[in-house]
């Protein structure tokens, strides 16, 4: 019987295989950031260990960096300490760091691909759950905790229980690909399979609905695999993948040789069997908006806030969860989604802050102004995204419309830096999690695509972007 892409990558990285329980897996790339690494480096020091492969380890600071002028000092003392600690750790252990002043600084999952550090067929880990993003390139990439970060620093390996394989086929064609985006596809998937639907699996996304997508859109899909509980998401690499990574700063010298190998080997065999499959047809999908406090609590922009009993379908736990969510979100069942007024807009995060995301978002705001009662910000995913966006004049389009145009970082996705919601504020956000308090204590998050967020900023409430002029 043939093998899935996941099994091929897994098999080529096994150091020690165990039948019952985790196997020891080799790690090709280890990405490090300031929040989940300090204790790991402390652990190395305590045990007189070195970083085994500093050449395969890359660090940046993204989670708590301010997104204001980089020339200003960092006012939050604890953030400042965490950032300085990463600088010292990288210096002491000989690790390449893109620091806060580097033109390559940015969200770790945005800079990996843009620098050509993320490669097909490789294994990538990072102390961050959205490491699944890199799977868009056919890499087996997953988030780990700090103990495992220390283990990888010390040994370049990780004990990992072999996940099950899960194929999600995305069939059909989007009717309006500007208005209905990769974000709407992945939110639809999570809405249908649930936040635990992918637990313990590696998802391989396949089908015309995926191959049609650009690399940056595929990253949005793989990024949110973790929100369905999956360890990782994967897309088999194709010519788009190989073109995207060509001539990047860290693209390997023997690139064409590698591409020939990848083209030949990095695909699921036709007779391979997945442990689980799910098919979504996207012919008729419409823009999605989350209404609750997990990403599975999502509906069509044309729908209304659901009644908990309808959402739960006889699952009492789900019904209670929906009731609590609606209470937290201060939403009444039956309210049309397009009647929900918003206070804030956040265009950013490792899900949706790449150049294409910003280009798409800019299409609905040209010549318009942000609604009077809304504060809207754009936080590019990396300093390089910011620079490229400025080269084509996006900054001007956004600032002319009264959006704030900020420096790169994770920002309001997780509320670690000063970019947070005030209690009770409602935000249209292009990020990945609408958990209670995620964007600030008492803040209310609605997950949407960049173009839906931009349109909501202009109108002051959610709108169906399919009805807007996107020419």
């Amino acid at each position, binding site marked *: 019987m043939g093998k899935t892409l996941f099994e091929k990558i897994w098999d080529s990285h096994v150091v*020690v295989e*165990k039948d*019952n*329980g*985790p196997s*020891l897996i080799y790690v090709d790339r280890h990405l490090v950031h300031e*929040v*989940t690494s*300090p*204790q790991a480096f402390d*652990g190395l020091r305590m*045990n007189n260990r070195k970083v085994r492969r500093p050449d395969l380890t890359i660090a940046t600071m993204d*989670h*708590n960096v301010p997104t204001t002028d980089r020339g200003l000092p960092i006012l*939050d003392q*604890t*953030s400042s*300490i*965490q950032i300085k600690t990463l600088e010292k750790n990288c210096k002491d252990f000989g690790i390449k760091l893109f620091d806060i002043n580097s033109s390559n600084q940015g969200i770790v999952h945005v800079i990996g691909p843009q620098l050509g550090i993320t490669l097909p067929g490789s294994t990538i880990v990072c*102390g*961050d*759950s959205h490491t699944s993003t890199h799977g868009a390139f056919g890499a087996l990439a997953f*988030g*780990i*905790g*700090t*103990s*495992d970060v*220390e*283990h990888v620093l010390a040994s370049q390996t990780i*004990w990992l*229980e072999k*996940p099950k394989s899960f194929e999600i086929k995305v069939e059909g064609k989007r009717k309006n690909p500007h208005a209905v985006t990769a974000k709407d596809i992945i939110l639809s998937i999570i809405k249908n399979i649930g*936040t*635990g639907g992918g*637990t*313990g699996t590696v998802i391989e996304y396949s089908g015309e609905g995926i191959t049609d997508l650009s690399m940056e859109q595929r990253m949005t899909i793989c990024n949110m695999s*973790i*929100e369905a*509980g999956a*360890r990782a998401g994967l897309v088999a690499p194709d010519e788009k993948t190989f073109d995207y990574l060509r001539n990047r700063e860290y693209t390997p010298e023997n690139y064409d040789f590698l591409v020939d190998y990848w083209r030949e080997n990095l695909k699921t065999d036709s007779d391979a069997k997945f442990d689980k499959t799910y098919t979504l047809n996207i012919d008729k999908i419409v823009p999605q908006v989350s209404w609750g406090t*997990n990403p599975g609590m999502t509906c069509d922009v044309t729908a209304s806030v659901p009644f908990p009993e309808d959402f739960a379908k006889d699952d009492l*736990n*789900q019904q*209670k*969860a929906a009731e*609590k969510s609606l209470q937290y979100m201060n939403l009444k069942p039956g309210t049309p989604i397009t009647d929900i007024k918003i206070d804030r807009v956040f265009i950013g995060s490792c899900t949706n802050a790449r150049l294409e995301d910003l280009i798409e978002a800019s299409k609905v705001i040209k010549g318009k102004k942000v609604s009077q009662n809304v504060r809207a910000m754009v936080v590019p995913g990396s300093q390089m995204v910011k620079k490229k966006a400025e080269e084509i004049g996006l900054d001007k389009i956004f600032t002319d419309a009264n959006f704030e145009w900020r420096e790169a970082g994770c920002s309001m996705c*997780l*509320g*670690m830096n000063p970019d*947070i919601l005030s209690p009770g504020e409602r935000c249209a956000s292009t990020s990945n*999690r609408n*958990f*209670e*308090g*995620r964007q*600030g*204590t008492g803040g209310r998050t609605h997950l949407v695509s960049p173009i839906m967020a931009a349109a909501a900023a202009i109108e002051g409430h959610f709108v169906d972007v399919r009805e807007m002029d996107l020419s």
Partner: protein
Amino acid sequence: MKGNVIKYERDNIDTDVIIPGQYLKIHDYSELASHAMEGLDPQFHSKVKEGDFILSGKNFGCGSSREHAPIALSHSGIKAVLALSFARIFYRNAVDGAFLLPIEIEEDAYHGISEGDEIDIDVKLNEIKNLTKNQSYKMKPFSEIIGKIIEAGGLFKYKPD
């Protein structure tokens, strides 16, 4: 291992409510613990006692990979979390750092055990005894290596065969 149960009858308790993002800059574990579960239950810190257990539904610990989550619970005194299922990163973090035991239970334990019940967990027999209600339930056994990592006291004390 005996203790009392704090029950959260819901699925999908995420690591953002276990320890909100704004506290991830804190290095002092007892200070971190003072904010444990703050996003869901602001009373948690005042009611939790050393040796308590948390009981919850499906997909416990979903979301962010922050190891601060099991650390904050562990330093609050929580020795084990019993749940219908766990998000995988939380599960591994709990085991690898030897912070607490992630124990997978079945529906009978989830519904049978109430807030405040005293229970006795025997990981050798894979059994949970409810001392308050005089009931017992099965727990799902740990896989071989996970069991060995737990026995060794964490990933760095574990020596492969």
